[in-house]
């Protein structure tokens, strides 16, 4: 099937971290997961060896997605074969995030976050 071309003249990304990705070009399948244990403490000290994910049930609780009921009959005609973005600027991509220029067939991404706030008495 003829696929369109994504054309971006200028990209300006300042930071890509925590297993994020800038993908330029087509891809077939993307599966991304991120597990975040965020602790906000009133006083700044950091033990460095604390926190384990299996202590918190959220990380092994499945997220139920609506099932994909195939088939979907699709007739697609690309009269103009170009997706054009002149300028794309992203300040930050973090936590298994993906900035993707190009086509993709299947993407599944999941993120689970546990937030804990500790205030001193």
């Amino acid at each position: 099937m003829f696929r369109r071309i994504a054309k971006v003249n200028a990209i300006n990304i300042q930071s890509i971290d925590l297993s994020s990705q800038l993908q330029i070009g087509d891809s077939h399948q993307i599966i991304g997961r991120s597990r975040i244990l965020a602790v906000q403490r009133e006083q700044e000290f950091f033990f460095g060896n604390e926190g384990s994910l299996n202590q918190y049930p959220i990380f092994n609780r499945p997220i139920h997605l609506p099932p994909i009921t195939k088939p979907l009959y699709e007739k697609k005609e690309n009269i103009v074969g170009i997706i054009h973005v002149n300028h794309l600027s992203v300040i930050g991509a973090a936590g298994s995030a993906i900035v993707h220029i190009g086509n993709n067939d299947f993407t599944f991404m999941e993120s689970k976050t546990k937030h804990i706030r500790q205030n001193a008495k």
Partner: protein
Amino acid sequence: MMLDVENKEISVGQVKIYGVSSSSLVLVGDANTIQLASSFDTPPESFVIGPLLPLGPEG
């Protein structure tokens, strides 16, 4: 269900994004299937008032 798609011109001047975080996707292009899911857990007992104890050991 029958989906009849006719793609004509699509041209965007500028896209400014502050942040793309935790398993999210910025896609410039075509896609067939995208499934994004996230769950967030901050129950009342996650708001702890008292001595600032470290969490359990790592691992």
